[in-house]
């Protein structure tokens, strides 16, 4: 069906429709247009979601901001201390080229790294929580590893029999970061 041609003056109704269309277009443009050089800010909720291990539309922005925005980084550090399960300070021992085997947290939690016998390129990263540390049985743990210049996180399955583990590939960024002698680790 072809559109009907009408050369006469527009009716009031048509004019209203046209006006509404123009307003909607303008609104859409305002909502969607992102001026060049202006970035959507990282909100505190985005940082909180990142700390809790959730992946949202803001996760990527948080990861970028953590490396180049001091304010975001400060907020992140403050939020990390809230509901913290364990903090593992920088290792005091002299730096070694060997893969670390074990780190002990302030409250006695253990972080172990064991090479898989089945695949030499893979390592088990194991969190062992002492009885003194209680966490919800169905709550995933989130490990945050931080140096001055880098931040990585990993989500662990809920603790089972006092332990939780993930498998890292040797070429994972987190694996390299964990070898850094300046790394601080927080478990949420």
């Amino acid at each position, binding site marked *: 069906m072809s559109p009907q041609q009408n050369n006469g003056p527009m009716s009031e109704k048509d004019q209203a429709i046209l006006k509404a269309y123009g307003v909607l277009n303008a609104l859409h443009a305002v909502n969607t247009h992102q001026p060049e050089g202006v970035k959507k800010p990282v909100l505190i909720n985005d940082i909180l979601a990142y700390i809790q291990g959730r992946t949202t539309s803001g996760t990527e922005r948080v990861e970028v901001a953590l490396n180049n925005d001091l304010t975001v980084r400060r907020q992140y550090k403050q939020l990390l201390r809230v509901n913290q399960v364990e903090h593992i300070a920088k290792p005091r021992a002299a730096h070694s080229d060997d893969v670390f085997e074990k780190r002990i947290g302030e409250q006695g939690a253990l972080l172990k790294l*064991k090479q*898989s*016998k*089945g695949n030499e390129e*893979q390592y*088990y990263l*194991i969190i062992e929580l002492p009885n003194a540390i209680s966490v919800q049985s169905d709550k995933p743990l989130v490990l945050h590893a931080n140096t001055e210049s880098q931040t990585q996180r990993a989500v662990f399955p809920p603790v*089972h*029999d006092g332990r939780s*583990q993930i498998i890292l590939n040797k070429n994972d960024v987190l694996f390299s970061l964990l070898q850094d002698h300046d790394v601080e680790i927080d478990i949420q």
Partner: protein
Amino acid sequence: MAIHVFIPTLQGVSHVQSIVQEDVDVPSVVCLDGTAQSLPISNAYYDFVKKGQGVIAKDFGHEAWRVDLSEPVEMGNSWQLGIYLAHYFHSKGELGTGEPKPGDTVIWATGSVKVNRDVEPVEGVERKLAHSSVLFEQLQQQQIKTLGVMCEANHTLVELPSYLQAVILSSCGELSPLLSELNIAELNVSSSLIEKTILQPANVNMQYSSKQKTNTQKKPVQKIQPKPKAERPKRSSYGLLALVVVAGLAISAYGLLALNSSDKHQDLDKTAIDDTQHFPPPAQGMFVDDAKKLVVKSDTSDSAKVMAKAVLASNTSFLDTKIKSVNQNCDQAEGRQFKPNDLNHFKPQALSQLCELSIHFGDEAVSSVYLYLLDANSFLPLVKAKLVKTQTNWAIPLPKNRSKTRKALVLGFDNTVTSDELKKLNRFLAMNIENEWMNAQDVQTLLAGSGYKRADVFGLTLEQF
């Protein structure tokens, strides 16, 4: 011949690719296709393995494993039977990677396994069969023997495809219905198995499997019934009672040892012994038979020849046996001697075919010999056998109940061992063998490091099938 284990799910079918023993402090895990992705059943598998809670650590002697599956298995317990069987065949060195070739056998298994090893029925078997239909067609085209393993309750509810041979398994503690089927496969492959089965115990199964073979030819869907429970031997009874008299020992030690051994025997009778604890397998040690062949073969590498010669020259000790063939009595048994491999393990012997068993310590001056029973963590003093005049053999008593595999260490000492020392040794061995996966050579080295420099240690496996 490799045995491949397939585990059906409600979405498809997954196969076991590998089983690897990890360090003891690694929680057992199930991974997807060799990747770093652990599957949601990992926690349940951990419980299935864990000592005291599960059966894998108890039956296969180690508490940390990694299993790789080809496809995700996300929930439920029906994977337990397949995983248990995979562990079993892994322990026998026969587990395949899930890519069967002609001559191999595929086990399609579904069922949950209780702590007492009973196999329980599971739901959705019809749907699982439907999802596996393409797999069955492929296996049929390749003429690969395929066994459908479930408990009786599940078998009665479903009609298996004609190609699939049904095996009813009521308990993982009683695998003979499945092993019988696998022996049929071996008989089909090679008629020279008779010689093989003498070395790799199976005479009871051979009789059984011969009958089954005929039946199977007539009727492919042959359900192999396990023996009724009443007919099965009781797991808890342990019949290793014999030859308590300790002859040839110094009189002062004699009293102590006789008292000790007598008490031990009473304990063994009364105590329910878990017979499923496994001693570390002999691994890939080289046996004298293999070594002889390697030395003669022209295409053997120099390094292999050197090793083979070393095996032939290294040990003068041997296991002295009298073995009967199928349908023979012990009167007709023939004497055979077996030297240990380079890990100090003797070739596993078939309980059903053994008539007499003793050990000769070769050039070593041995004055006391003990059998350390892996399933009871206790010592049994051995006495000198009277049958041999020209050499000193130490008689190893055969268990009355021959339906279970027994694993033991034979320890020969150049001097008398006091009862206090035996207690210490017992603790030492129980701790080390439980926590470590070690062979007899390792135990001997450990003992040497603990002051027993003149102790000879050998691994002995008496197999039930």
